[in-house]
């Protein structure tokens, strides 16, 4: 998998989180997973199409999601309700949108599907035949993982 496909999602995640939360985000070491990955508690999935097929997963613990949703709404949110879900989904939408804009500027033809949010414990995600690169982001509210699994289409010119 080409790193230039992953970096825009990682950079977009850092930039958007820093903008909306007004905090410093620290990127940790990138690692590769070929097998099933456990979900931390709240995960937003964005499908990728165009020159590639794959997906991006923005994953965090529910406590982290609640704190982030609270800051974005400028009020404390104690329960992961519909507004909290809409807020975290919109956060992922902004990250996907920023990354796609950057990839498009670099000449790649990527499109994103509307984000889908999953919540719960003891969940795992598998993407058969796709390697997943995971970049953990260290925030003052907890760890967020940007998980990108993407493969070039066989008929792609890239």
């Amino acid at each position, binding site marked *: 998998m080409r790193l230039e496909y992953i970096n825009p999602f990682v950079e977009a995640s850092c930039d*958007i989180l820093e*903008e*909306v939360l007004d905090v410093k985000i620290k990127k940790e070491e990138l690692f590769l997973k070929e097998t099933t990955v456990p979900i931390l508690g709240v995960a937003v999935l964005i499908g990728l199409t165009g020159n590639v097929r794959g997906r991006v997963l923005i994953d965090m613990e529910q406590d982290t999601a609640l704190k982030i949703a609270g800051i*974005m*709404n400028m009020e404390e949110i104690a329960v992961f309700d*519909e*507004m909290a879900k*809409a*807020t975290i*989904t*919109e956060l992922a*939408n*902004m990250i*996907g*949108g*920023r990354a*796609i*804009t950057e990839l*498009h*500027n670099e000449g790649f033809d990527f499109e*994103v599907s*509307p984000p889908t949010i999953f919540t719960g414990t003891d969940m795992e995600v598998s993407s058969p035949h796709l390697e997943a690169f995971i970049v953990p982001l260290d925030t003052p509210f907890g760890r967020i993982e940007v998980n990108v699994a993407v493969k070039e289409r066989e008929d792609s010119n890239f």
Partner: protein
Amino acid sequence: MANEEYPSVNERPPDGLKPDGGNFKLMVVDDSMFVTKQLTQILTSEEYDVLAVAENGEVALEKYKSHYPDIDLVTMDITMPKMDGIECLKKIIEFDKNAKIIMISAIGKQDLVKESLLIGAKNYIVKPLNRSKVLERIRNALS
């Protein structure tokens, strides 16, 4: 010190007030309840009247027609279920060629921006929403 009789020259009237004292009426179109809440908070803080909120293009078109000619400006998301923002923009402009619509999207691809402006959008804002940028674009579109 300012008083009611002699207001300070530094005090400005809220953006949402028309010269005749009425409020500009707006419709917010977005499928995210977070974004509609955020936009409504920004707009009402400047005394804009958020007359209608719609969660997709179909509902937005219906509401624009039913409130016509009361809506002064529409903020329009692009990616929405049922009818997306570009299609809704086209249909509202077909119905009312003087409609003032500002596109708001997380995606800032140049071709999408150009297409919206060619169809008749007044401006384009890329998320995350910045309060002063939103208000400035709306103020300019209404002036």
